[in-house]
């Protein structure tokens, strides 16, 4: 099934958000909804970056603290924190961030590839950069960030 059409390859639609003092964005098509922070039930012996699970209309959905996941420490607790519910493969996962601030439509040509990390063991969580006057917006690779990505995501 050929999916590439002129218009599709020309722009990327993204939801931009801020957390850990940096700007990020994710593909808008993977965003299911955006919710206020709500209490998450802790999971035993879970990695630091897993806040717990919440009840989303009957389904149990894990919440990942993006800041912690990227090694920038836990997101400070605040009522204004936001959970971005994303669909990844067959799973629904929530990402905890500080604030959503924009919806972008960025021409493919503007997006720069992520810097080469050389021989580091680390796997890049970012698969693109959007330069802006006041910094850059990192495009997050959800498959890398969410621990249990489905194989449907290439």
């Amino acid at each position, binding site marked *: 099934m050929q999916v590439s059409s002129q218009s599709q390859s020309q722009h990327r639609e993204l939801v931009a958000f801020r957390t850990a003092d940096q700007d990020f964005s994710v593909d808008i098509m993977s965003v299911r909804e955006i919710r206020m922070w709500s209490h998450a039930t802790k999971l035993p012996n879970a990695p630091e970056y897993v806040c717990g699970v*919440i009840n989303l209309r009957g389904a149990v959905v894990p919440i990942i603290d993006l800041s912690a996941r990227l090694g920038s420490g836990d997101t400070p607790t605040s009522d204004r924190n936001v959970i971005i519910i994303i669909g990844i493969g067959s799973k629904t996962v929530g990402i905890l961030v500080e604030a959503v601030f924009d919806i972008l439509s960025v021409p493919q040509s503007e997006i720069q590839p992520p810097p080469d990390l050389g021989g580091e063991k680390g796997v890049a969580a970012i698969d693109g950069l959007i330069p802006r006057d006041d910094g850059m917006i990192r495009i997050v690779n959800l498959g890398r960030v969410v621990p249990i990505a489905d194989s449907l995501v290439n």
Partner: protein
Amino acid sequence: MTIRVLAIDDSRTMRDMLYRALMGAGFEVELAEDGEAGLSCMEVFTPDIVVTDLNMPNLNGLQYVEAVRGMANWRGLPILILTTESAAELKAEARRVGATGWIVKPFDEEKLVTAIRRLAA
């Protein structure tokens, strides 16, 4: 997507009538006999809208609405009160706890169906 309706009433006759009317309108219907049963029903059947009576044992209509409004994950669920009562204080109370609207019994099938279609996506 078919609209899923949860209908709560302690009268068997009422439940039968609601079932017939709502199924006839092409909705998916689940029934419960009081507020408490309604709440447990919601754990397995996710309604798009709830129609509930006021006077019921265990958990009455107002208490049910209050309980649902207190649950973050059911935010925005439309709840219609179905009642014979027309007292103003009751309506104010219903509004205060967050009921979406009310239909008076004996209910006009068409009105109920229209109201449901208007309120539920």
